[in-house]
């Protein structure tokens, strides 16, 4: 009896082991062919600056969405659907972004768009997409007005139901930076500079408001022209103001030279910015005196997220020439959110895309929820990411190093 039991147990175990082995083999072989032969092609539009000063961030966005599409095809994630991307270059210009939005709407295979990088560009595209009921998921727009309306500080009203984002907003990023600068860095006198653009001016405003509430003093403000790289006049004003810190609302192509020139003017004080300066290119442009400069960026540090590690490995294996940069994980998650919404729509319609696929995908996006590269991905009633994490990074020995992370749980 004991022997028979042994045989039965052994056989069951062997069968189990063989089944496990078989599962492993199927997974291993699954990527060689998408198995979508003859199926439907869905295009995910991508809009980002692919040329110009901000192209490092833009190309990271494009490549990361491409990786999401390829991963879905490899895994045959949506049965009968193959994903492709159509990437357009907005050069960081709102007018070009709007033209791109019109082009993407005209391609009926486009069922969702990832982008753009700049909030000002996002502003110019929203209405075009919303009229066409084409869903847009930005991995990088942080201006609160895009999801909560221009009066977001007093009355939050969602302007467009087709607009979503995976990045945390400046309503949190600016105050988070202010808290760190005032309480942790013990800086009490700030000189605030911005580039007058939607993102930069908005971020500087949310920083300033919180810094003042904490008891900090704003000893000077300036706006710079983003088309120039000569900031010597502003740097001299900073030096003469007695500020112990500079906050800059803008992007790294200007922030790097600004930091360098402020130090050269004799003000050996840190420059602090938002996700727009969190780029390796900032460090190159700021030079050696940039050590000690700070940036906040969306999300937790990559090394703390196991899912992000897998993304980093897959990105490397895919052989993209450019780095995924600050928004790679958010771009992958934005692309994957569209893939999830398409999957839902197809499955609810007997395995086919319905005639009103764009409207249905937009509707499905509201309830998308999955474990992404950056953590849990889902959206609140405004289309904002429910996962609101931020990290402060400092330039140390020529590289960004994370120094403090926070999560908004309100």
């Amino acid at each position, binding site marked *: 009896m004991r022997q028979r039991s042994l*045989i039965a147990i052994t*056989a069951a*175990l062997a069968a189990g082991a063989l089944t496990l082995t078989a599962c492993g083999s199927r997974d291993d072989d699954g990527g060689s062919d998408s198995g979508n032969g003859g199926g439907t092609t869905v295009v995910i539009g991508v809009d980002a600056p692919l040329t110009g000063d901000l192209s490092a961030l833009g190309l990271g966005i494009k490549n990361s969405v491409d990786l999401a599409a390829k991963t879905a095809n490899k895994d045959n994630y949506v049965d009968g659907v193959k994903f492709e991307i159509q990437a357009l270059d907005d050069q960081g210009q709102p007018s070009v972004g709007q033209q791109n939005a019109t082009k993407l709407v005209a391609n009926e295979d486009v069922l969702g768009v990832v982008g753009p990088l700049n909030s000002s560009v996002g502003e110019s595209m929203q209405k075009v997409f919303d009229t066409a009921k084409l869903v847009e998921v930005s991995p990088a727009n942080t201006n609160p007005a895009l999801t909560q309306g221009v009066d977001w500080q007093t009355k939050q009203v969602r302007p467009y139901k087709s607009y979503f984002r995976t990045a945390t907003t400046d309503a949190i990023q600016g105050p988070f930076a202010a808290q760190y600068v005032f309480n942790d860095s013990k800086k009490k006198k700030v000189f605030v500079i911005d580039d007058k653009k939607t993102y930069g001016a908005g971020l500087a405003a949310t920083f300033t408001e*919180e810094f003042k509430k904490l008891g900090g003093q704003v000893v000077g403000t300036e706006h710079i022209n983003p088309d120039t790289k000569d900031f010597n006049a502003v740097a001299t004003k900073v030096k003469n103001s007695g500020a112990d810190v500079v906050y800059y609302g803008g992007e790294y192509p200007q922030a790097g030279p600004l930091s360098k020139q402020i130090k050269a003017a004799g003000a050996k004080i840190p420059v602090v910015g938002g996700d727009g300066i969190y780029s390796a290119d900032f460090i190159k442009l700021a030079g050696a005196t940039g050590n000690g400069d700070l940036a906040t960026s969306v999300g937790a540090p990559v090394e703390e997220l196991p899912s992000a590690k897998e993304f980093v490995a897959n990105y490397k294996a895919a052989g993209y020439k450019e780095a995924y940069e600050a928004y790679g994980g958010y771009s992958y998650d934005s692309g994957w959110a569209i893939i999830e919404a398409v999957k839902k729509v197809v499955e609810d319609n007997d395995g086919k895309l319905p005639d009103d696929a764009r409207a249905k995908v937009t509707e499905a996006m509201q309830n998308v929820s999955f474990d992404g590269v950056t953590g849990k991905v889902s959206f609140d009633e405004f289309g904002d990411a429910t996962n609101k994490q931020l990290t402060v990074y400092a330039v140390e020995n020529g590289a960004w190093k994370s120094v403090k992370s*926070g*999560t908004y*749980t309100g």
Partner: protein
Amino acid sequence: MTGGIGPVEPGEDTYLRNVTGRAGPGGRTAPSRTRHRRTVRAAGAALLLLAASGSLRADRAREPAEAPPPYPSQAVTLAYLDAAPGPGGARGGGFSFAVRLSVRSGPPVTVTRIAQPSAGLSVASSPAAPFQTKPHSDSKIIVTLRVTECDKAPRNPGFPFLDVTLRNTRAIQTHSFILGSRYARQLSQALQVACGNDSR
């Protein structure tokens, strides 16, 4: 990976020794068709058992390397619940509130410190740190802030946060939890009562 699979490995060697004993010299001196069949079946079973346990063992060996525990900051959420009765009260320079600490994944997490970054305020908690939480559990914590110096305390912070130091088997981290607008509002009211409504 536990339950039915767990006991197999310890039993493996024992079963193998029993089978080997049957196929030994004593077995061969008294051959019988039934016995031979049993021996073959047992030997086959042993081979299958070896293959199965080897596969499982390999899976086990790989598992820790593939799935280390999450960083504590990624395993824990902290949510503001409401103001709570506490020692001192606002007029006594204190503000107590309840938060819910949830361990969503990974091993137990020890809260080694609860702090807040503003000068002029001190923090105490019940339970007092350090304390340990169980995996996949919710714990209610009462936090009390006391004004130590009104001049240095913030009057109207928009995004005040708690700095919580968390430790699990993966790492020790200090993470900021920004508890939202209701917390900010109630904290501001308490600070104004404690320090008066005079502006800086």
